[in-house]
């Protein structure tokens, strides 16, 4: 196992990505595990996670550290959140928010086994409905396929600490299905320019998707 530079608990082995399991012997999505020197690693697939895809495409920074507090908008079933749960370790915390009861049910079960995940059934378009349930975070991670994705991201910036990192996954077709994805990506890049740290398009793992990392400045 070789640690991927700068990223805590993310490893690479034989061309695949892994995280060090914060809750050993626990898997939730039928992911493969590897045992090395008594430590258990879970396979982190870029086909299933946009964050993994960005790391595979050699993004320079994601900002997530051990013990980070993460606000995850669009947590869905909890695949990526479970791996961020490994990255931040048992001292970290992830508030996973999604609006669909069917997926929050799955997320709830994952959270029951992983104490550092907290599931919320809420609409990310309305931070006023959950501001009192969460804390200020070091990381704002968003993966929501809606037309006003960028607006939602900015609305939830209030929960990100100064100097914290924002990670935004963009699906070009959700914003405008008729326009060329690279035009949309360029526009997003321009909107975020002042705070942009790095970004990557996610092919070949996801078509017409990109991930942006920003840092909240003074």
């Amino acid at each position, binding site marked *: 196992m070789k640690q991927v530079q700068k990223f805590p608990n993310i490893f690479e082995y034989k061309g695949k990505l892994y995280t060090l399991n914060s809750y050993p012997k626990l898997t939730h999505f039928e992911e493969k595990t590897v045992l090395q020197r008594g430590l258990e690693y879970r396979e982190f697939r870029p086909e299933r996670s946009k964050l993994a895809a960005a790391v595979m495409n050699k993004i320079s920074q994601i900002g997530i550290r051990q013990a980070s*507090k993460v606000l995850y908008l669009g947590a869905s079933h909890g695949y990526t959140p479970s791996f961020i749960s490994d990255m931040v370790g048992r001292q970290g*915390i992830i*508030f996973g928010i999604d609006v669909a*009861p069917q997926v*929050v*049910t799955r997320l*709830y079960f994952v*959270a*029951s086994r992983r*104490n550092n995940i*907290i*599931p*919320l*059934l809420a609409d990310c378009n309305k931070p*006023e*409905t*959950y*501001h*009192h*349930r*969460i*804390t*200020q975070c070091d990381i704002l991670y968003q993966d929501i396929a809606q037309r006003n994705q960028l607006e939602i991201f900015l609305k939830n910036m*209030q*929960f990100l*600490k100064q100097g914290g990192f924002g990670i935004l996954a963009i699906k070009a077709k959700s914003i405008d*299905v*008729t326009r060329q994805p690279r035009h949309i990506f360029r526009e997003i890049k321009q909107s975020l320019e002042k705070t942009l740290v790095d970004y990557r398009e996610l092919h070949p793992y996801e078509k017409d998707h990109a991930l942006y990392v920003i840092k909240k400045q003074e």
Partner: protein
Amino acid sequence: MRVLYSDVLGSYVFEGTKLIAKADFSLDQSIGFSREIAEGRTVAPEKELMQKYSAHKASQEEASQIREVMADKEHLQDLRRVNMKITADDLRHSVTADHIIIHTINNAEEVTRMANGLAKRLREWYGLHFPEINEKIEDNYGFVKAISRKDRKTLMDELKIAESIGSTMAKTELEPILELAETILDLYEQKRRLELYLEKAMKLNCRNLTVVAGSLIAAKLIRDAGSLQKLAKTTSTTIQMLGAEKALFRHLKNRAMKPPKHGHIVNHPIVLGASRPMKGKAARALADKLSIAAKVDYFKGEFIGDRLRQELEERF
């Protein structure tokens, strides 16, 4: 400058970054107050504290600062505990009539697909014994019913077929085939019952929409829109297109390709009965009335479905 802020664990009065007063919530209060705060209301403990300490409610910036100060390990553990309870409660109350309707219509379609798929297999298998009947009965349900009830000789007499080039089959060879036929009949029967159930559920949940569109089409519209609320909020032109997404996006990406005139509503008697040049107008008019019906149903208004239907039938 005293500031009041509440999270799900309690209400707090801060002076700068110093906590000068607080009111902890019990677990029951946490759950109840959480909803009220989410709706923007001020709860009793907040009013008391605001009065007692002459504090004003925290602004967004002040709230952010307070949240940061409060985030110690114990607080976070309590936050998790309460959130799990609130989310569990939210999930328990999250099932609506829409969800049930969507599952029902999806299952009806699934069962139909299964029955038709198995019927194909049945035709081939039974065709070893009596291939002539395949062409004679085109309807799957009719075919399955016929061969499960009557033997080859009877069918040949009824359908006026003199000879069969199929091979004779022993009783033991026919048994599994007939068992398959029974299974398929079961599925068709299940579908029939599902549609009755759907009809009842639709009439209860959205009377107007059901009268104007019929329960099947209305259920598909709700499913494709996501919920009755979304259907009520969306435009009539979208309703017109629901179900024709493939053709719609093909047109949007390539203006040379013509846009579709109708999605699920193509199967509605008013659109089916319209002449070629009038089909588009009929689809548009129907979609308009459906839009009105959905809105009335969502906001639980009066029953105007029959009037809407009548207006359409008069025009077309």
